[in-house]
C-alpha cells in the first residue's frame, strides 16, 4: 500500500498562497498548483455553491466575481487569483436572507433542478449592476453564457424583469 498521508500529487511545486474570498483571506497550503479556482473554492474552502458542469467555460455554472468581473471559476487557476477580490454565491447574501435576485428566482419559478442557478444568480447581479433596466433581448444576450437545461429560460427572464421593475420602485 502506498503512502496515504499525501494530500496532493507528489510532483509539482506546492507553495502557500492566499485567496481573498467573500471578504476573508484564506491561506491555501500544500495544494497542487494545477488546481482551478473552482476546485479550490469547493474542495479546499468548502464553498460548494459554485458548480462545475462543463469545465471549459461554456455553461457558466461556476460563475464567480474576480475583482468585480464575472468569470468562469473553472477557467481560472486558483493560484493566479491571489490579491484579487473573489465573490462567490455564498458571498451574495447571508444564508436565510436571500438577495432580491435570489428571491425573485424562487418566486418566478426560475429554479428547477437548481444546478445552473448559483451561476445565473451571479450573472444576473452582474447584469443588473451594469444595466439596471435591460430589455428582454439584452437579458438574453447578457445571460447567454449561462446554460440551463431544465427551464427553457422563460421563468428566468421573468425573474430578472421582476427585479428590474422592483428596483426602480415597482413602476411597470
Amino acid at each position, binding site marked *: *500500500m*502506498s*503512502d*496515504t498521508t*499525501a*494530500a*496532493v*500529487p*507528489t510532483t509539482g511545486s506546492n507553495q502557500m498562497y492566499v485567496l481573498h474570498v467573500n471578504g476573508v483571506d484564506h491561506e491555501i497550503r500544500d495544494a*497542487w498548483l*494545477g488546481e482551478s479556482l473552482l*476546485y479550490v473554492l469547493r474542495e479546499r474552502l468548502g*464553498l460548494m*455553491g*459554485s*458548480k*462545475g*458542469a*462543463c*469545465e*471549459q467555460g*461554456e*455553461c457558466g*455554472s461556476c460563475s464567480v466575481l474576480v475583482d468585480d468581473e464575472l468569470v468562469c471559476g473553472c477557467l481560472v487557476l486558483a493560484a493566479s487569483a491571489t490579491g484579487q477580490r473573489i465573490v*462567490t*454565491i*455564498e458571498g451574495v447574501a447571508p*444564508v*436565510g436572507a*436571500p438577495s432580491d435576485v*435570489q*428571491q425573485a*428566482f*424562487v*418566486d418566478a*419559478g426560475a*429554479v*428547477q*433542478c*437548481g*444546478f*445552473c*442557478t*448559483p451561476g445565473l*444568480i451571479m450573472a444576473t447581479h452582474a447584469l443588473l449592476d451594469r444595466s439596471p433596466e435591460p430589455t428582454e*433581448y439584452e437579458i*438574453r*444576450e447578457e445571460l*447567454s*453564457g*449561462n*446554460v*440551463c*437545461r*431544465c*427551464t*427553457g*429560460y*422563460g421563468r428566468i*427572464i421573468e425573474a430578472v424583469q421582476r427585479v428590474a421593475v422592483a428596483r426602480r420602485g415597482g413602476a411597470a
Partner: protein
Amino acid sequence: MSATTATTTTTTTTTTTGAPVTGRLGDSPVRPDGIAKVQGSFAFSGDLSADGSLWGATLRSPHPYARIVSIDLSGAWAINGVEAVVTAEDVPGKPTYGLIDQDQPVFASEYVRYVGEPVAAVAANHPETCRRALAAIRVEYEVLEPLTDPERAADGTFPPIHPNGNVFRHQRIVRGDTEATGEVVVESDYEIGMQDQAFLGLEAALAIPDPGGEGVELYVATQWLHEDRGQIAACLDLPAEKVRLTLGGVGGAFGAREDISLQVHTCLLALRTGRPVRIAYSREESFLGHVHRHPARIWMRHHATRDGKIVKIEARIVMDGGAYASTSSAVLINAVTHMQGPYKCENAVVDGWAVRTNHLPCGAMRGFGVVQACFAHEGQMDRLAAACGLDPVEIRLRNAMETGDRLITGQVIENVAPVRECILETAALPLPDEPVGGHDGDPMRLPGGAGLTADRSHIRRGIGWGVAIKNLMYSEGFDDFSTARVTLRDGVASLKFATAEVGQGFVTLAGQIARSVLGVDDVVLEPIDTTVGSAGSTSASRQTWMSGGAVDGACRLVREQLFAHVGAQHGVDPLRLAIDGRDVVDTMGDLCVPVAQATAGLVFEDTFEHHHRPTEELDENGQGNCHTAFAFVAHRAVVDVDPELGLVKVVQIATAQDVGRALNPLSVIGQIEGGIAQGVGLAVMEEIVQIDGRVRNANFTDYLLPTFLDMPDVVATLIEHPDPMAPLGAKGVGEPPCISSTPAVVAAIRDAIGKDLTRTPVRPSDIVF
C-alpha cells in the same frame, strides 16, 4: 474512520397560521428547496463528502470494439496516494447489470464494445492522482472491426458482437386489413440523430462502507433508488438491505439517470478501501458514461382517402441501441405502438427493430421512443396534407383521435383525448408580431446573430406543426407502483417517500397534496431514501400520477384516522366529517375543530401504495392493452431561416397541452418551456456525432445546447379536463413538450425554404445543399 459529514436536507415548509390558506392543489407555491438552491447551499450529489474520503476514477475503453489481451495495473499501484485499483476480477457478485436484460459489464473483461466502456477504476487521495493512475494502467487490446451500421445488425449480416446477439428486440404490429390502400399514398425515409440528456449536474456519488465491509451507504443522484439498490446489491453480492441509498441532490436527469453508471464502481472502491469514496464525472465522461436517445431510421407510408382520411399506415423502424440493452426493448415498443400518432387509424403494418452496435449505449430520454415515431408521423402528415391539397391544421383535425378510438395495438383510448382541442387552441394563439430581424433591426435577432450576418432580405419565415400522443407510466405488464408514508403529529404532516426529485418539483406537489387533504399548513419532507417502499422511477411522466397518488392515498388514510378520533371525541359519525381550510368540520352540524388542536399530542400514521391498472404484453402481431394511459399535445413553430448560410432562428413556439388538471400551474409552465427547449435542441443543434464508433463532440463546446438566445418565446394554453382515471385528475406533463416540438420546428424550416428535410437535427448543410 472518523464520523462522516454527509447529510441530506430535511425540508420544512411553513405558511403563517392565520393567513389565507395557500399552497394547496391548484396553487403555485414556491419550491421548498428553492431558497437553498438560489443561495448555493442545496447539496447536490457532487457536493457531498465525508471525512477521510478518497476520489475514484474510471479507466475507459478507447476502442469501439476490441478484445482485451492483458491488463497491467502495476503502474497505477506504484503511484503514491493510490489506495485501490479494481477490474472485472474484483466484482464479487453478478458481473453485469441492466434495467431489463443484465448484459452490461460492471467492468469489461474479455471484450470492450464501445468507446468509453469501463475497464478499471482507481481510488486515490486527489483527482489528479487518479488521473495519473489511470494513465499508468497498461491495457493491451486486439482491435476488432466495429459494428456501426444498425441495418447490418438488423439483417443479421454482421457476426454477433455479444453472446446475446445483435438484435435486442423485433416487434411487428399487424392490424386490420393489411391489403387496404388509399387513393393517396405518401412515403418517405426519416432519420433522427442521437441526443444527449445533457443534465448540468454531472454524475456524482459518495459511498460510505460499513465497518467490516458488511454493507455500504450510497448517496447518489438517480431517478430510481430501489432499482439501483437491487442492481448494486447483486453486483456486490450483498443482501439488498445492506445497500442503503439516499438521494443526493439531482442536477437534472431526463432519463440519463435511470441506468446505473458509477454506482457499483463507487461502492466497490469504498468496500475495497474501507474508506468513503467520491466519484465525480467530467462532462466528457458523462457523455460516455450514460445512455442516450436512440438514433433511428424510419421508413413510413400513409394511405389515405382523397379528402385526407388515413386508411392505413406502414412503417419500418430501426433503432440503434448501442452496445448494451438498457431499456432498448421498451423504447422500441413505445416507438412502434405510437407510429400512428394522435390520429384515427384502422389498418397498420409496422415492423421495428432495436439492435446492438458498437455505439454508445442508448436507453431512456424524455419522450422514450415516441420522439422518434413522432418525427416520422408528423413529416408524413405534412406530406399527406400537400398531396390532398389541405393545410397542415386541416389534415390533423380530420384525423384527430378521440376517447374511444383504438391504437394500432387494438387498445382503446379510455383517457380524456382532446386532440382536436389541442390543435384548435394552439392555432388560436397569436403569431409573433415581430418581423424578421425584430422591430428594432438589431442584427442579433437574425439567424446566426451578429457573428454570422445574414442578408436580411434573403431570410424567409416558415410555420410548421407537430401533434403528439404519449403514453404515461410503464407498459407491458410492469407494475410500477409508488409508496408513501404520512405521519400527522401536532398539526404537522411528515411525508416519507423514495420519489426522486430531479428538479421537476414533486417535493412542491407533495406538500400541496398534504395541505389539501389534511388541512395543515406545515409539511415536513423526510429524506428521500430506501428506508420506505419503492416509488418507481422518476420517468415516463409518471410521478405526479403515481407518487402523487401514493401521497394522496396515504393522506386520505390518515385523514380517516383523524376523523375517527374526532368523531369519537365529539360523538359524531366520522362519515359526516370533512376538512375545511385548517379545520375538521361536521358537514351536518356545527362542530369545527382545528386540525392542529385535534392532533395535539397525538400521532396518526399510515402508508399507501398506489398501483395503476394492470397492462398486458403485446402478442406476436403487436396486439394488446400494453399501455396505462395517454396524454396529448400540439405545437406550432415559427422560424426564420437564412437559406444561404443554413442558419435557423426559432422565433416562437405555440402549444396547447392536455394536462388533465394543473395541480401547480407554474410548475406545469416550467415543464412545458423546458421540454420545448429540448425539442428545439433536437430540431436544430443537438446531436452526438460518432464516426467509426468514436464520439467526436463529447463536450459543451461541440455538442450545442440551446442558450437564452436560441430559445424562442413560448406561448402556451393548458387544456384542463381532469382525467377520471388519474388519482388527482392530473396527467404527467414532462414528456409531451419535447415530442412534437421537434417536428414542428423542422416542418417550419421546410415551409420556409421549400425543401424536403427528413433528418433531425437539421444541419446548415441540409438547408444549403
